[in-house]
């Protein structure tokens, strides 16, 4: 498997660093780990980078994770990127909504590094 280029979208910089660290500790070969503070910044990163994976929060100011998923579908460079939601909002309806909008996985906070690894491998392996 080639090195994975990842974008982490979360309004908390501490949470972005925790998710990034969990990815680095996962044993997967990581390429670039980019960060964005909301959906608008996330879309800008999608337009200017080649990404394999996006880990995205739901509750964020400016543009939340659900709207980001909606807009990602209309982005040419968004096609083929696996998206995993990372959020405290892990209710069944949120999961269904996120999956219907194209998300491929779901991680509920609090999480362990092992859970991040399992979710990420789960969405990347079928494509590799």
């Amino acid at each position: 498997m080639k090195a994975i280029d990842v974008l982490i979208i979360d309004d908390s910089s501490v949470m972005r660093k925790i998710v990034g660290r969990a990815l680095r500790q996962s044993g997967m070969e990581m390429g670039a780990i980019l960060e964005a503070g909301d959906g608008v910044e996330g879309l800008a990163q999608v337009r200017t980078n080649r990404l394999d994976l996006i880990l995205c929060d739901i509750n964020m100011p400016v543009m939340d994770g659900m709207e980001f998923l909606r807009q990602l579908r209309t982005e040419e460079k968004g096609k083929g990127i696996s998206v995993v939601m990372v959020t405290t909002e892990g209710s069944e309806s949120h999961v269904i909504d996120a999956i219907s909008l194209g998300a491929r996985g779901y991680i509920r906070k609090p999480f362990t590094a092992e859970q991040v690894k399992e979710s990420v491998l789960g969405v990347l392996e079928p494509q590799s």
Partner: protein
Amino acid sequence: MSVLTHTHPELEEGIGSAGHCPACHSLWSNSALLPKKAPRERVFPEGGWFPIMRASIREVFEMMLGSETGPGVDYPPNHDANLTAMIGIAGQLMGTMAVRCTTAAACGMAGAMLGIEVTEPNEDVRDALGEVCNMVAGNFKHKISGLAEGCSLSCPTVISGGDYQVHPLAQGERVVVSFTFQGEPVWVSLDLHE
């Protein structure tokens, strides 16, 4: 007084739809036709709030901070407890949850989350405390049947300073769980509105 000489469109586009009336161009919506909201059912878990709060706190600290929580203290927050993160809860359960602690405890939380030593109450410390409050509240509602769907959380707010008191304006219940983190006291309070 205006006299209505035509019928506004109703229900053609389903309950909750809205638009302009083609006859008079006024804005209309059929939200008034929505069924009346049922009164909020009182939620009270078997065994009370305390054990659920404790379990929620413990999981967040163990999973995200890699640290166990120590025994609670038998005194309320004093002026030294000068950082508070607060989050609003709305829906089937209404109220606020707050995490209040000393600067040293908050710096310790940020340090544990980031894997570095943090000694000054900077932006990362406030961010980390807000996230701890957010995760404890989110974990708490997931542990109560039906609340994950029926209840929403606001974005957390962080307050600096310890010389204040909280006066909920609605009647309700207050539950406080205290514990120690790296030897420093931490209080998590749940203020519920009836």
